[in-house]
């Protein structure tokens, strides 16, 4: 009889445990699927994704440059106090309408175009577009000719004019090569958002949204579909990955 009672209690406990285990198993199974979807170290960047940004210029304030400081500290972009030659990956532009006098502000960075002029003109192919849409410079084969700097309609590229030290291990940069915003590719490959977006969300006004433009369920894709946004210099037909709202 003791055995029966025990077994009854045991069976209830067992069911409970079984139920809990099943739930745990399912949830960890989902987690595993999520992890599987997340890019592992050995996985190749895929053209099934296209990373992009949506920037709401209404929320962007003239006196805020959280995105710029976020980027500078992430990549150690501290300059040499020589603004004409110091590198700048993202900058704030202040716009004043010539007719109405309305003032607005927005961040300008590499637009990660689908048809990048910088990639077209690079003689060695150092300037290239990764399969998931990020436009990068392969500094191993960059010869420093600066043709891409001339070609970029957004003035997104910078040439490094002096010897650099104290680089971050995930952001190599050196004298004599050209660089620009990498969309924090090292963070994206670890499923984090770019430093500028994170800074804007934590210290700024939350004007920047990052995500996979090809994923119809992502926040950015839904927002782009729902509200109007535009590219800067859309007339060039570059199909930029960075779009602006309320411009």
């Amino acid at each position, binding site marked *: 009889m003791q055995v029966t009672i025990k077994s009854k209690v045991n069976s209830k406990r067992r069911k409970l445990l079984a139920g809990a285990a099943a739930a745990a198993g399912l949830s960890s199974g989902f987690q595993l699927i999520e992890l599987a979807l997340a*890019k592992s170290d050995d996985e190749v960047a895929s053209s099934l994704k296209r990373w992009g940004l949506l920037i709401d210029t209404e929320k962007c304030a003239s006196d805020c440059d959280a995105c710029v400081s976020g980027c500078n500290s992430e990549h150690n972009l501290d300059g040499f106090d020589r603004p004409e030659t110091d590198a700048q990956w993202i900058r704030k532009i202040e716009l004043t309408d010539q007719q109405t006098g309305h003032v607005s502000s927005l961040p300008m960075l590499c637009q990660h175009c689908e048809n990048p002029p910088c990639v077209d003109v690079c003689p060695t192919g150092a300037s290239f577009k*990764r399969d998931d849409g990020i436009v*990068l410079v392969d500094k*191993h084969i960059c010869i420093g000719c600066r043709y891409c700097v001339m070609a970029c309609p957004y003035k997104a590229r910078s040439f490094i004019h002096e010897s650099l030290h104290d680089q971050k*291990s995930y952001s190599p940069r*050196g004298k004599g090569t050209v660089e620009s915003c990498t969309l924090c590719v090292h963070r994206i*490959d670890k499923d984090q958002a770019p430093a500028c977006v994170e800074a804007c969300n934590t210290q700024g006004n939350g004007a920047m949204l990052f995500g996979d433009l090809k994923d119809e369920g992502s926040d950015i894709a839904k927002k782009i579909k729902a509200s109007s946004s535009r590219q800067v210099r859309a007339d060039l037909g570059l199909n930029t990955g960075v779009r602006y709202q309320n411009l």
Partner: protein
Amino acid sequence: MEPTEIMRRDHMNFLLHQRDRTVHDGIRSKQHSLNECVNCHVQTNQSGEFIPVDAPEQFCQACHGFASVKLDCFECHATTPDEGYSALDQLLPDGHNISAMAFFKTRLPHQAWPGESLSAEIAASPSTLFP
């Protein structure tokens, strides 16, 4: 990371191949990663600060100086691990760990270990590192 004899002769080929995989394909596996080389082979000075791995008398120059082959990697790549990284923590999390063997092997015979006091301890009783 490959056996020493292979590394000595072919490390450049591994790096040349890996750099394209990382930059163009986003493959960031650690086996042939330059950052991982730096993380293991970098040394610290007496104050515990990292010494640039390509400085004279450090790991790279031990061979490159003799072979008279100029290093180009560190024009762009970081010569020390990022702030907050501690090789010792990595390899000796609880004071004695089998991966200390790996740490041993990354030192060249004439190189000192980081931290004089540790050296003294090891000199006194090396077996504390290998339980």
